């Protein structure tokens, strides 16, 4: 089955300025396969593997040639994404399709091995790769390139980057949220927006699932008319034919809901992507907070050291210091000791000032880069969601047209009774 990309407007081909791609490429996640293997604990497990095919496009005639083809499982996609999150904290990193089926309505399976779920995941993973490939910064990443081209030992390569160590601790990030004194207002607003967006989309998805459930019930019960009309027609003379054929249309009506709701699942998946994007947005904001917090701590530390130095030099004690305390208790220190201490502090202060300069620069560059990507993201979001909403409205209209058709047919059958 060909991959359906109706909701990815940026089915992108790479620009030729990329490091690793000499020509435009096409990426597709074309197949999914059930596999069994042994996991790290040497226990047997079942998982699904996805075939990723990369094609290179001839600029002259647009013909594409298969250049790479390998199998990856979901956990490897996760690894790639976690790596990107760490190395590109200023980028709103595209999300993966959900790990477990959520927002299910009764007919939909919550089982990860269910073929419909696997199919929708396949599409979601392809979408993820295309988003990364079309991003001006992310597409140039070597690990991403290797993900598409290096079948063996890719995991080891990723781990060798040491990204896990670079990752900020969750606790630290949480700390930062509450203690930052001068956050950039724009990031605060953006984080607030991310929170609201996440909340409203998950509410929407929950209710939509319930709506789908109910609609399914309405259509399916009509199927019972088919059976009873058929039975009734058996005892009728003139009415028989009309009833029988009308009953057939009721069966058609009842069956039509399956396709309708399957199409709607794609719409739900588009919403889900942006639900998860909201999380990525918040991640960027958190990074900013962290950096800001770091900066503020460093500045605070520097200021306190400067103060200490000043006090030591002038002999006035304004700030509390352990040294000051102990010298009070255990006797004054010698002028030589004091000199030594001042020297150390002055070195630290000098270092600190350098660091602060660096951090400030880092911070400003981060803000600049992040904000650029956020603007890019906003445009993408507006474009994609607008299209999704319009196609949803079109789906509803198409459903109405089908309904009118079936009932008109049934009405004609009734008129012949």
């Amino acid at each position, binding site marked *: 089955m060909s991959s359906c990309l109706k909701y990815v407007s940026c089915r992108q081909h790479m620009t030729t300025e990329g490091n690793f791609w000499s020509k435009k490429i096409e990426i597709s996640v074309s197949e999914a396969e059930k596999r069994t293997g042994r996991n790290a604990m040497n226990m047997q497990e079942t998982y699904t593997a996805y075939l990723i095919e990369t094609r290179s496009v001839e600029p002259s005639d647009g013909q594409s040639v298969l250049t790479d083809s390998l199998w990856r499982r979901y956990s490897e996609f996760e690894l790639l994404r976690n790596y990107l999150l760490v190395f590109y904290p200023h980028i709103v990193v595209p999300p993966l399709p959900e790990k477990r089926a959520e927002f299910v309505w009764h007919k939909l399976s919550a089982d990860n091995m269910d073929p419909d779920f696997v199919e929708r995941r396949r599409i979601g993973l392809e979408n993820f790769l295309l988003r990364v490939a079309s991003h001006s910064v992310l597409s140039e990443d070597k690990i991403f390139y290797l993900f598409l081209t290096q079948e063996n030992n890719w995991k080891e390569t990723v781990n060798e980057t040491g990204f896990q160590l670079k990752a900020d601790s969750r606790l630290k990030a949480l700390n930062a949220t509450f203690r930052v004194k001068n956050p950039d207002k724009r990031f605060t607003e953006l984080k607030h*927006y991310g929170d*609201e*967006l996440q909340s*409203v*989309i998950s*509410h*929407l998805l929950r*209710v*939509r699932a*319930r*709506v789908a*459930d*109910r*609609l399914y*019930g*309405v259509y399916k*019960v*009509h199927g*019972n*008319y088919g059976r*009873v009309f058929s*039975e*009734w027609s058996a*005892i009728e003379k*003139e*009415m028989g034919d*009309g009833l029988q054929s*009308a009953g057939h249309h009721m069966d058609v009506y009842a069956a039509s809901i399956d396709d309708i709701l399957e199409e709607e699942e794609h719409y739900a998946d588009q919403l889900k992507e942006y639900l998860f994007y909201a999380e990525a947005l918040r991640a960027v904001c958190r990074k900013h907070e962290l950096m800001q917090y770091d900066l503020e701590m460093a500045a605070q530390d520097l200021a306190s050291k400067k103060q200490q130095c000043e006090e030591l030099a002038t002999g006035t004690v304004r700030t509390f210091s352990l040294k000051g305390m102990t010298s009070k208790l255990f006797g004054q220190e010698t002028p030589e000791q004091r000199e030594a201490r001042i020297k150390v502090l002055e070195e630290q202060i000098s270092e600190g000032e350098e660091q602060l300069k660096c951090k400030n620069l880092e911070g400003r560059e981060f803000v600049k880069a992040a904000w650029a990507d956020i603007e890019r993201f906003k445009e993408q979001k*507006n474009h994609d*969601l*607008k299209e999704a*909403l*319009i196609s*949803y*409205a*079109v789906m*509803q*209209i198409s459903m*109405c*047209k089908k*309904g*009118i058709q079936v*009932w*008109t047919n*049934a*009405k004609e059958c*009734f*008129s012949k*009774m």
Partner: protein
Amino acid sequence: MSAGGVGTPKSLPSSGPKSLQDMPHPLAGPSSEDIAGGELTPSPDLQLPRSIADKDLSLPNGGTPAGTSSPASSSSLLNRLQLDDDLDGETRDLFVTVEDPKKHVCTMETYITYRVTTKTSRIEFDLPEYSIRRRYQDFDWLRNKLEESQPTHLIPPLPEKFVVKGVVDRFSEEFVETRRKALDKFLKRIADHPVLSFNEHFNVFLTAKDLNAYKKQGMALLSKVGESVKYVTGGYKLRSRPLEFAAMGEYLDTFALKLGTIDRIAQRIIKEEVEYLVELREYGPVYSTWGGLEMELEEPLEGVSACIGNCCTALEDLTDDMTEDFLPVLREYILYSESMKNVLKKRDQVQGEYEAKLEAIALKKEERPKVPAEVEKCQDRVECFNADLKADMERWQNNKRQDFRQLLMGMADKNIQYYEKVKSVKLPE
């Protein structure tokens, strides 16, 4: 052949296609104004006795136009029926409508009355027009009277008498309107019936200012005359049921079953639709909330929210219509089938009685071949009953077909209208 004028939609208020002045008198000869069925004047047997008191009440066919008990009356009855079928609505001469429900609050009780309007050119009626008010009790009385006095005919059903208080509001607009439609249909079916429409009680129901006085008089009358038209339900064993009645009985059994199933399905659909509506009502506003967060997306989001709101309104209309217009008619026909089965049983009893009497005679060998008058009367009863019932069943089948054709087309229509309403929504660019 087309559906014909006899069984035209009963839910519409009947209105004469011609003014009363132009309508040909039933006994008049053909005139230039007459169209299609104009030359066919009804049989001269139309002169009906005004009151039942004149008739010998032991005869089953007290209401038939012929007034005699010979088989000839059956054929003239069928004759009339054929004439009836040939007549367009234009030569119908009795129009009845039930409308304008009003609530009456008295010290003892509160109840609803309906205005019953009659327009007719029949000589059985003193005036060409009548307008009186009646309550459900009165309709119920009429139906009982008809069952008593015309036991060989199929009497149309009334809407349910008892309503579970607390579950349904007896005075709600929807309930009253549904009941009004059913009562209107009831009277129209009687008015269209070639025999029942000439019934004395029906006449009084349509015309009397004080129906209660007549009711009391009627009771006194019956007690004077004594044993009236009640049948001996002596549990006679039937030797063989004529095929057509056996078939009708089986048909009615299955028919009522299927209608019951359809009723349950329709109710279930309405229930599912109502639950769907509940969810939609929560769904729509979430899009609006989201729109409040966005700038560029606000318009399309509000658009989707409005679409969903529109869908809610249309869905509410659909479920209301189905509840008010579809379900009651189904139930009416189930009641109809039940009362018809009772009439079939009565017929069986009459035949059984006759067969038993006949057998008794055959055993008494000393009797002459001349059959005693009593047994002859029984035979007449059987034959009249069979003729009346057969004619009524045919009419019923025809009317049923048209009623269901209209009902089911109506259901399809309502669904089409629902989808049309939902579809008619503006898309953002």
